[in-house]
């Protein structure tokens, strides 16, 4: 894989606070190689490692995008939900930013039936059939529609299982990570000092609490995906 330039500079990452970890008491000892120091009761991750891993992850993502693989970005923390949605829309990927319903991937056939229902409801809404039904039915269908829109809105363009999954916080999205592991889907995970780096395939030690740091990492990955797509368009 060719290594490209991804505009990762360490000062920018320090300003966003990527190197901060969680409190000292909550660490996972498997993160010991990635922790460089302990300051004021907080672990500090090694920023060069993070930068290197991030650039390698971007290379991988670029490579995959240029081969037209499908991505899925999962981030359900309410701080990060908005930026996950926007980042995914920018990169033209699928995303899950409200609660990750158990079995989205492992029970894909059931998810497909739900998506079909979603699509039928949308069609009905567009053709205006909902206004011709009695009020009670129409209200019920509209509620279903909003329900499906919040939970499945980001994956409505997904035709099959994704090829790479990007997970924002490992503690929060443990179910999502486990699903990907059972199915054998490679995952990129943003790890903090209280997470297990051996679970995901690609783990990037960052700070998952600060919105700025999540946005920075997502920015780089989204940039890589966009570049991959455009390189596919240039030479398929």
């Amino acid at each position, binding site marked *: *894989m060719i*290594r490209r*330039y*991804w*505009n*990762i500079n*360490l000062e920018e990452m320090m300003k966003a606070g990527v190197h901060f970890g969680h409190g000292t008491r909550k660490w996972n000892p498997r993160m010991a*190689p*990635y922790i460089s120091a302990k300051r004021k009761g907080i672990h500090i991750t090694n920023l*060069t*490692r993070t*930068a*290197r*891993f991030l*650039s*390698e992850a971007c290379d*991988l993502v670029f*490579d995959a995008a240029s*081969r037209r*693989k*499908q991505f899925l970005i999962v981030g359900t923390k309410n701080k990060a939900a908005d*930026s996950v949605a*926007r*980042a995914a*829309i*920018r*990169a*033209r990927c699928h995303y899950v930013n409200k609660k990750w319903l158990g079995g989205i991937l492992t029970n*894909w*056939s059931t998810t*497909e*039936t739900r*998506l*079909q229902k*979603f*699509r*039928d409801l*949308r*069609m009905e809404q567009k053709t205006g059939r909902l206004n011709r039904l009695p009020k009670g039915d129409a209200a019920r269908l509209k509620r279903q529609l909003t329900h499906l829109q919040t939970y499945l809105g980001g994956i*409505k*363009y*997904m*035709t*099959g*299982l*994704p*090829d*790479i999954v990007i997970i924002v916080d490992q503690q929060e999205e443990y179910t999502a990570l486990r699903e990907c*592991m059972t*199915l*054998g*889907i490679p995952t990129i995970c943003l790890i903090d000092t209280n997470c297990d*780096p051996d679970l995901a*395939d690609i*783990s990037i030690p960052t700070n998952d609490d600060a919105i700025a740091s999540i*946005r920075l990492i997502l*920015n780089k990955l*989204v940039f890589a995906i*966009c570049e991959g*797509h455009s390189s596919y368009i240039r030479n398929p």
Partner: protein
Amino acid sequence: MAATVTASTLSSAASLSIRTKPRLSIPKPIKSFLYSKSPQFLSLSSHPTTITRAQSSDIDTSFFDNVNPEDVIVFDPPSPPEDFVPPPSFDEGPIETEEEIAAAYEELYGPAFSGESILGNDVYVMDSKVKKTTGFGSKGKKEKIRDGFEERVVQVRRVTKVVKGGKQLHFRAIVVVGNKQGQVGVGVGKAKEVIAAVLKSAVNARRNIVTVPMTKYSTFPHRSEGDYGAAKVMLRPASPGTGVIAGGAVRIVLEMAGVENALGKQIGSKNALNNARATVVAVLKMRQFRDVARERGIPMEELWK
């Protein structure tokens, strides 16, 4: 963690024989009545008969698999190209209307499940793909399935759950699935009808398939023991012409694997499911001589001394 064995594609199916040898522990006068019911009225909950596994074998994660976090890892990015403009973050930059976003997504993925089509593609394109797997009513789900694996039922048992209203009866089927070339899987499935339970367990068995290391005389490379729960199984290779000398579940697993000469003994519990799983454990512990010699870096002759 790459995916292990994937279910092979829908090639021409070999003739499968579901030889039901139900060994029931409880005498069941109801059994004949159940078999006379037509199978079309099985539970229409569409459990998938095809196993979806992600095809991601060409994503190269070698850097991350081989990196040793204890080493000193340097960060030396290549120099930026001359006209590199740092791109805007995803928040800034031009705000796209919904239509532009929908058009862009549709270009990449087709209209999928979104319910609207801006580029003029057919909105119901996913129907044809989804309806195939969940067939309805007339032919049910394709019973005589696909991919060259033969199924054999080890045990069908009627199990009961006692609730306030009475007893709820289910059937639990244990099925061993294998092609005779060294791949076996053991699966369990429960349902209210025997046939549905057998189907479920076959699907389950196809999900956990292991490969049996075999020599050219269709036997094991060496002895091994495996245990699962209270069932302990001892497997021993045999010279050609011996056949499979083992009891019950162990024999079925070995036969489905294609092993022709072996000795096996169930030590400990005689529970069929646990013994089947214990043989799988025993088989997983075995190594081919070639691999061990390569790992240890010694010629194979040393291993036979």
